[in-house]
């Protein structure tokens, strides 16, 4: 969990200017052309360093999952680069893509729906090995058992079906599936939000333990800020497809810069009745991702909105070391 001096290091994954637009079709379908675009991810850049956890927070629908899925090429990006291991992931195909997928795995939000209900757990876990043709049958079984043991599943679970497990156990299976091929990067897309509080902590501890053990790098997507804070070294805050702020965890909490981040942090309820915080209540409606407002996307709800916000999109800038924000409030003058 070293998150200092990362500038010196070469990033493991370098995402630059990622955009993902979903075309919205007109009433004539393919024939009628495209009516507009849902700009799910809009010019997002970040780096991921080996062994660290980058947390991504943001409200529902702001493009967190789409970002994760695009990096894994589960949907094709509209624009941008993702440099990994000397190559651009978005240019890969065939063999290269497969090899990349061995290194980069995903843990899904809903532990139940991400497991094939008709496959025994053993089969599900062996499948990635079969796909990448790793080991003999026998070896695969051994490998799977080893990993099951690691994530705290019993061996007799090998022959069970997903529905015979509790939510927490299912998420362990999802984790095991991601880890079975020895990946370098694991993208966790809200891995605990479907779980109960008492189970959630089990999984988070497990994630941290495995990270230590295998030197894993996590891209940890969630909307629960306290969870993200607990696990992440750095945090990126997303709003409507944009990465509005990005900073080391401590720095972000100590000094949230973007008005949205401020509102977000202040709105998180604290389980302490004696402690009331001044909440920043946001007014105004969330714009539809189909037609984003001009200028800063947050200006419709921003308590500090200025004229410039309505016409000009802010640029990402490093306000403090490693603390980036896109907001006119911190504008060093531009032309």
């Amino acid at each position: 969990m070293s998150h200092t001096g990362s500038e010196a290091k070469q990033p493991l994954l370098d995402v630059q200017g990622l955009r993902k637009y979903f075309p919205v079709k007109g009433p004539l379908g393919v024939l009628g052309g495209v009516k507009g675009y849902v700009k799910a991810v809009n010019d997002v850049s970040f780096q991921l360093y080996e062994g660290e956890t980058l947390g991504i927070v943001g409200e529902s629908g702001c493009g967190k999952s789409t970002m994760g899925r695009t990096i894994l090429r589960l949907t094709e990006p509209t624009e941008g680069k993702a440099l990994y291991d000397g190559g651009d992931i978005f240019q890969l195909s065939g063999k290269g893509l497969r090899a990349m997928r061995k290194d980069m795995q995903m843990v899904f939000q809903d532990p139940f729906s991400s497991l094939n209900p008709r496959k025994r757990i053993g089969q599900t876990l062996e499948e990635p090995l079969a796909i990448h043709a790793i080991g003999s049958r026998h070896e695969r079984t051994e490998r799977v058992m080893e990993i099951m043991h690691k994530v705290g599943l019993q061996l007799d679970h090998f022959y069970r079906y997903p529905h015979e497990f509790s939510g927490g156990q299912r998420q362990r299976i999802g984790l095991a599936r991601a880890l079975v091929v020895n990946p370098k990067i694991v993208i966790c897309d809200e891995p605990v939000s479907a779980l109960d509080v008492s189970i959630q902590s089990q999984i988070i501890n497990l994630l941290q333990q495995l990270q230590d053990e295998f030197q894993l790098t996590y891209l940890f997507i969630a909307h629960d800020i306290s969870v993200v804070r607990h696990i992440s070294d750095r945090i990126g805050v997303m709003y409507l497809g944009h990465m509005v702020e990005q900073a080391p965890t401590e720095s972000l909490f100590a000094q949230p810069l973007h008005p949205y981040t401020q509102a977000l942090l202040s709105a998180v309820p604290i389980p302490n009745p004696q402690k009331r915080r001044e909440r920043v209540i946001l007014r105004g409606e969330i714009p539809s991702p189909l037609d984003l407002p001009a200028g800063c996307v947050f200006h419709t709800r921003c308590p500090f909105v200025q004229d410039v916000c309505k016409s000009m999109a802010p640029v990402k800038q490093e306000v403090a070391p490693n603390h980036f924000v896109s907001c006119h409030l911190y504008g060093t003058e531009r032309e």
Partner: protein
Amino acid sequence: MNIYLAKRLFALIPVLFVVSLVIFLIIHITPGDPATVMLGESATAQDIEALREQLGLNLPLYQQYTEWLMKVFRGDLGESYFMKETVLQSILSHLSPTISLAILAQIVALAIAIPIGIKAAIRRGTATDQTIMGFSLLGMAVPSFLLALFLILLVGVKLQWLPVAGYKPLEMGLWTHLKYLILPSLSLGAIQAALITRMTRSSMLEVLNTNYIKTARAKGVKERGVIYKHALRIAFLPILTVIGQTFGGLITGAVVTESIFNIPGIGQLIINSVERRDYAVIQGVVLFVTTAYVVINLIVDVLYGMIDPRVRLERK
């Protein structure tokens, strides 16, 4: 809305093309042709050959097909080989019995099915429910032609309450018209009714389990209101789909019933035309029927949108 309709109708074109080609090929590889039928029982091979020549049935298949297709594009379905009318006239004259029958059968089905389906859903698990479901299973298992025979024997021949067969157009009076259609629509409608009863029940049960029904109850809506106002409207959606499909089926395929009750509808026209190898009519009718099928389902979709705003065709 209009664009949507246009799109749906546009999508009809490839379907019609496929259908016409399939049917064209099938009927042309079928032995026998219009000439054999037109000339009567003891015609000789030469006569048949000669007539074939005259009717253009000796041309290569692709040529016959393209010629036919060109004509259709010009809106001309051609002329029946067997009957002294154009294909369009044949279709129109055979259409009204079919439509009357379909509508009546559908009414019979709905009038029976929806109330008892709802009853079964409300009383689920009770003897009432089981009886209704038992009957509906039976209804689905009885082939309509068996039911038709039974009705003819019982109501027509034995009791002589209703005529056993035939068709009288509406111009001859509503009752005369209906009298001839009651038995056929019963035998057709029974299966529909069975199907719709089951649909109603299950879809009603599903809806009754939803949260918004709980919301309605929590608001204090009376039970009747909950069922008829809140539940039925949504429960009706899958039923509507079934109605669309079966009604389309009724228009196109009451073949057996029409044949038993001797109703000169589209089904009869198709069967007879196959028997007469009346190529022009078969192709024309199949085109028509396909269009009708698609249009009916389109209407159903529009209705669907009217009932359920979530699928409304255009948002703006």
